[in-house]
């Protein structure tokens, strides 16, 4: 077969891959067809990789094979991590994706050095800058999520000025390269400056903002792949990158809305201005209850809503919650789970954590759907969540979380909160919900407390 004919077959394979990519995302719309979506994606990827290996431009396979084996060796263990570790795995995969795009962009610069046009240099410059900053930014995010780096926002005076000066320097270097693409001294400096900017971009951001940051980095990683497609004239990369980029973009907008942050805030990633709360917690009386009392209240209820937060996952209490769901459901009590968009550490994280514990997904209800249900609910059980049920978001204009959409837990009959102590949550603010007349605090470790309630429920059930 001649080279042109092979090239045609390769193009057909890539077009098929693009079609399958789109179908994969379409099928992901519901849990029923989602596995088919993954399969479509796998076939597309497999097809594209195998087709590429037949590319007539390839002259040596040794390093390709070695790198593929190394890649599989890294990828498989990263595919087996615990569900609680999925956010850091995801951040790491954004880092790898961006690294890959940046490396290819850099290689492309040196390959075309003798005949590179200004226009091509502009494309490469942009691609390499976004790829590099996404690489280091994602590594920092992964480090924070893995708790290798401090979770709290690391801020210093004038930090936004420093960050944007670094970005400005990278852009100026890129412009200088467009004017003179053959300047091989400036190119590596531009890469290093862009890498540095990624560090300064994400370092100041605190743990509570990680769902937004991950989504934003997702978007950057996607768009850097798209830009690479422009550099290489590869439509398959442009499409895959655009799909990934728009997905990350939509998710970051959803996360922003869920935390009441502005749209410009997302685009420029300037979350550096998080205020440290000064609210002091004075000792105020709360009502507390035992596992036995909690079990009695649950048994008397007709409709129960559970509000899980990341604290539940930290305490490994999701299996106990599912047990409780099973016991209560068997007695004809309506039990559902209210999922706030930022519950967990990345978009949708709480759903996966509960699905892993075998909670049926039709019991996981999103915020906008569950909020009208609260006035008809007898008992709300809050486990390891805090800010997402804090009425201050609606009532106190001066609160750091003012305007953030919350789960209206206080509108029901009785609220029970499982909590280790009265210490405030991520945003560092006190929660009025705990001091309400209808609220019972269940002090203790979530897992052991739920075990206690379940035991009471079971003995009460056996007696009846």
């Amino acid at each position: 077969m001649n080279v042109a004919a092979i090239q045609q077959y390769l193009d057909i394979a890539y077009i098929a891959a693009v079609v399958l990519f789109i179908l994969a995302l379409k099928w992901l719309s519901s849990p029923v067809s989602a596995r088919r979506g993954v399969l479509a994606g796998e076939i597309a990827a497999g097809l594209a990789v195998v087709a590429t290996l037949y590319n007539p431009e390839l002259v040596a396979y040794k390093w390709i094979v070695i790198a593929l084996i190394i890649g599989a060796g890294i990828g498989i263990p990263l595919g087996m991590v615990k569900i609680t570790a999925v956010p850091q795995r995801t951040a790491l995969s954004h880092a790898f994706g961006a690294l890959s795009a940046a490396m290819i962009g850099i290689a492309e610069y040196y390959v075309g050095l003798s005949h590179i046009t200004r226009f091509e240099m502009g494309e490469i410059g942009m691609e390499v800058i976004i790829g590099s900053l996404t690489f280091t930014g994602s590594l920092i995010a992964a480090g924070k999520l893995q708790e290798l780096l401090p979770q709290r926002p690391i801020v210093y005076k004038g930090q936004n000025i420093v960050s944007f000066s670094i970005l400005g320097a990278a852009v100026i270097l890129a412009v200088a390269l467009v004017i003179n693409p053959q300047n091989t001294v400036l190119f590596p400096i531009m890469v290093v400056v862009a890498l540095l900017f990624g560090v300064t971009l994400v370092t100041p951001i605190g743990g509570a903002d990680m769902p937004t940051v991950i989504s934003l980095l997702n978007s950057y990683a996607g768009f850097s792949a798209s830009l690479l497609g422009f550099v290489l004239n590869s439509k398959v990369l442009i499409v895959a990158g655009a799909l990934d980029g728009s997905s990350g973009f939509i998710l970051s907008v959803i996360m922003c809305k869920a935390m009441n942050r502005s749209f410009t805030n997302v685009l420029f990633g300037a979350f550096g201005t998080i205020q440290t709360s000064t609210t002091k917690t004075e000792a105020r009386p709360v009502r507390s209850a035992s596992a036995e009392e909690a079990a009695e209240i649950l048994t008397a209820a007709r409709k129960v809503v559970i509000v899980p937060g990341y604290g539940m996952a930290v305490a490994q209490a999701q299996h106990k919650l599912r047990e409780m769901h099973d016991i209560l459901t068997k007695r004809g009590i309506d039990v559902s789970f209210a999922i706030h968009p930022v519950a967990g550490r990345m978009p949708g994280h709480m759903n996966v954590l509960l699905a892993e514990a075998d909670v049926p997904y039709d019991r996981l209800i999103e915020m906008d759907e569950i909020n009208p249900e609260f006035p008809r609910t007898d008992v709300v059980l809050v486990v390891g969540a805090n800010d997402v049920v804090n009425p201050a978001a609606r009532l106190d204009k001066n609160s750091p979380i003012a305007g953030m959409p919350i789960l209206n837990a206080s509108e029901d009959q009785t609220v029970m909160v499982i909590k280790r102590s009265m210490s405030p949550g991520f945003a560092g603010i006190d929660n009025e919900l705990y001091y309400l007349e209808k609220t019972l605090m269940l002090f203790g470790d979530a897992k052991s407390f739920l075990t206690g309630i379940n035991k009471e429920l079971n003995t009460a059930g056996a007696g009846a």
Partner: protein
Amino acid sequence: MPADFISNLYVFILAGFVGFGLIKRVSPLLHTPLMSLTNALDAIVVVAAIIITGRHETPLTVTLGAIAVAASFSNMVGGFFITDRMIRMFKSGAAKKS
């Protein structure tokens, strides 16, 4: 502007709109698998990495290319693997009873 750029821009814009349309319809239940799946799809940059590596032009491009192959292929393998693992965890109430 080069002609290639214009046609690439068309593709990019259309793909962006398709992406928006599709992703808006993904249930929030599946936002975590969505991110890992799009990440695995994005790992298609491995094809560009393979070409750079296999052209065997200079030691520098082979090194950069091989790093890119390893990084993106790990995303491809790990991304599909974990997405499938997560999606298998989602069971409906009806499926559970039977």
